[in-house]
């Protein structure tokens, strides 16, 4: 009799816990593939397709499936490769293409004929304009993907390298010269 009771208790426990686990698996279900999301978070979201995939997400999916290398994204640069390697435990490889400085597209507004072709090409809607009106690019939103260059029938779009200004200037890694230069804009906090 006792053994039956014991079995019954264990069985009941199994049922309850099973139900709880089942419920939890539905309730706390993780949507999507977290690995793809993590990879995508590292990619620069330029949507340029230079990796050979039609956007950052497809590339992330391909990486997650192990279908392709992690060194195909030129805008992400070597740093992106490094971070992907860290995330996935893969080997760091040199970048397939040449690393380019960050750029923005600029439309020569005198030449633009207002054909709207570049608007259709821009993946992030960074170009404003209307048919037969001059178009212009919102520099802050341009990712520098160059997708708007080929469709332009009058070749009025060019890419400009982003230059350093006071707002995006970065302190450099300290290099201590053996013979200090007399005049240079270096901080002086330890001079006193």
């Amino acid at each position, binding site marked *: 009799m006792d053994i039956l009771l014991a079995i019954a208790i264990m069985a009941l426990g199994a049922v309850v816990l099973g139900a709880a686990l089942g419920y939890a698996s539905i309730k706390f279900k993780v949507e999507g593939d977290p690995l793809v999301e993590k990879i*995508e978070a590292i*990619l*620069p*979201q*330029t*949507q340029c397709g230079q990796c050979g995939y039609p*956007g*950052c997400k497809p590339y992330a999916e391909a990486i997650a499936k192990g279908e392709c290398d992690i060194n195909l994204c030129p805008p992400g640069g070597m740093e992106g490769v490094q971070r992907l390697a860290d995330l996935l435990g893969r080997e760091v490889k040199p970048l397939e293409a040449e690393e380019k400085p960050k750029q923005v597209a600029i439309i020569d507004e005198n030449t633009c004929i207002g054909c709207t072709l570049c608007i259709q090409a821009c*993946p*992030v*809607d*960074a170009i404003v304009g209307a048919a037969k009106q001059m178009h212009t690019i919102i520099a802050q*939103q341009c*990712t520098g993907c160059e997708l708007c260059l080929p469709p332009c029938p009058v070749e009025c779009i060019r890419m400009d390298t982003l230059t*350093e*200004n*006071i707002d*995006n*200037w*970065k*302190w*450099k*890694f*300290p290099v*201590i010269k*053996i013979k*200090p230069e*007399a*005049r*240079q*804009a*270096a*901080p*002086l*906090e*330890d*001079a*006193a």
Partner: protein
Amino acid sequence: MLKQLFKFKGGVKPPTNKTQSTTLPIAGAPIPSRLVVPLHQSIGGTPRPVVQAGDTVLKGQLIGEADGWISAAVHAPTSGTVVDVGMYVQPHPSGLDAQCVVIEPDGRDQWIAHAPFDYAHATPDAVRHYLQQSGVVGLGGAVFPTHGKLTASKTVPMDELIINGAECEPFITCDDLLMRERAEDVVRGIGVFRDLLKPKKVLIGIEDNKPEAAAAMRAAVNALGEQFLVVQVPTLYPAGGAKQLIRVLTGKEVPASKRSTDLGVQCFNVATAYTAWCAIATGQPVISRLVTVSGNVQAPRNYEVLIGTPMGELLQLGQPHPDTDGIVMGGPMMGFLVPNDTVPVVKATNCLIAHSERLFPPKAPEMPCIRCGACGEACPHELQPFELYWNARARNFGKTQEFHIFDCIECGCCSFVCPSRIPLVQYFRFAKSEIWAREREKNAADEAKVRFEFKQYREEREKAEKAEKLAKAAAAQAAKKAAEAAAIAAVESPSETPAPAPTEATGNTPLPAVDPAQDAKKAAIAAAMARAKAQREAAQPKNTETLNADQARELADIEARRQQAGIVEARTAVPPPSDAATQKAE
């Protein structure tokens, strides 16, 4: 009256070098040959220029309009002609340039019409707006627009208003002299801040190496019948850091992730209070500030200087020694060498130090860290600079954040004590700006992603909408055409075939296209076919009416042959027109 003081850990005592510049009273610097006024002189949005080259401006005229709430207006420091609005080198460690308005003074120094602000009858919002329009910003060095700090937190009651007159950095004495000579205006300015923030207490913190300033402030507070408490704090660098002063006076510690208002404290510099009051009492915007000229000069002194004065011209007033080889803006602990001597004095410039190797001997090369821990003891924020240093050097930025790099105020105490002469702060600045850059990139990427996804969504939606519209249009047309066809058929053959045509027409109008594309398309096609048929009938060959017998027979033969060959269905277009309608019905 005695106030319990708290302590912060660490701190250093560098030689103060303050007495040289306090022997003489404040003097007015002459109008320079040319003024280069940067538009971006405060934290926040860059003001938009409202003048062009060639314009004549009066002293105090608006030249840069505040852009957004956190931004402050910029004004012409003297009357003259705008000769350029363009990029000029900035007093910034980067040596890069930014937009400036260059004014050639006409020497008349003629004010624009201005009137005192009616403070007694103004609402708090109006006062804040007025301070923004007058270009009042924090003059302690951070240049945060003052009006942005004058709104009390809605949830946390404002306990203390701290007025910072500590001025802990060596060489700098401009706040000291200001309090000695113009204490009354400072106290009135504090009164304005008090009215806006309604704190329970107002504490004025002054380092105890400035007894004259403290005495003058006490006298002014008493003379004006205010309840402010003037507190002398121990002289210890960096007691003048806002966070340190708050700590010393209230015992509260402000973490990097919070604003001091969240803890019920707000802190202003004495010079900020002074300029705020001047703007209100006289109606004159901020166009000048006090600057200490010291270091390797013969005549150190404090000057009231127009914003935009080239630093080289200002330094000449102090008669620099011939071995001067640069200008340091700010103090020796936190300041930096400016790129060249044409850069202008800005609202953040509190001190110019003539640099020479005699005064600041070049540092011996950096040695490896020996983990002595001296930097940790000196750090006023109780950080572990050596850990930060390791990780910053290894570009291990995530780790530096775990060690609270953003709590570092870059005071330089750690570099000051390091026996290995490691420029620790440079590493921290490097790490911080890398982290910020990454943050910016991440935000840009996130935004690009959102926009990309939205574009995709929009394209999908547009496609769907277009399809639906087409379907609707087609359905509508189908209905119309079918109805037409029926009508025509009915008109064309009323006598001979009353029945069939209408039936057929009704058969072809099962519309309206409830479910989209497919049905509608089918309906459209059917309708088009019906229409074609109807047309064929309607347009009976006119030449068949007047046929003679031979021709009719011939036609009938042809038709028969065609039918045999299966080219046409049994459609008798030819002989008697009456048959056509009947047959078509099948």
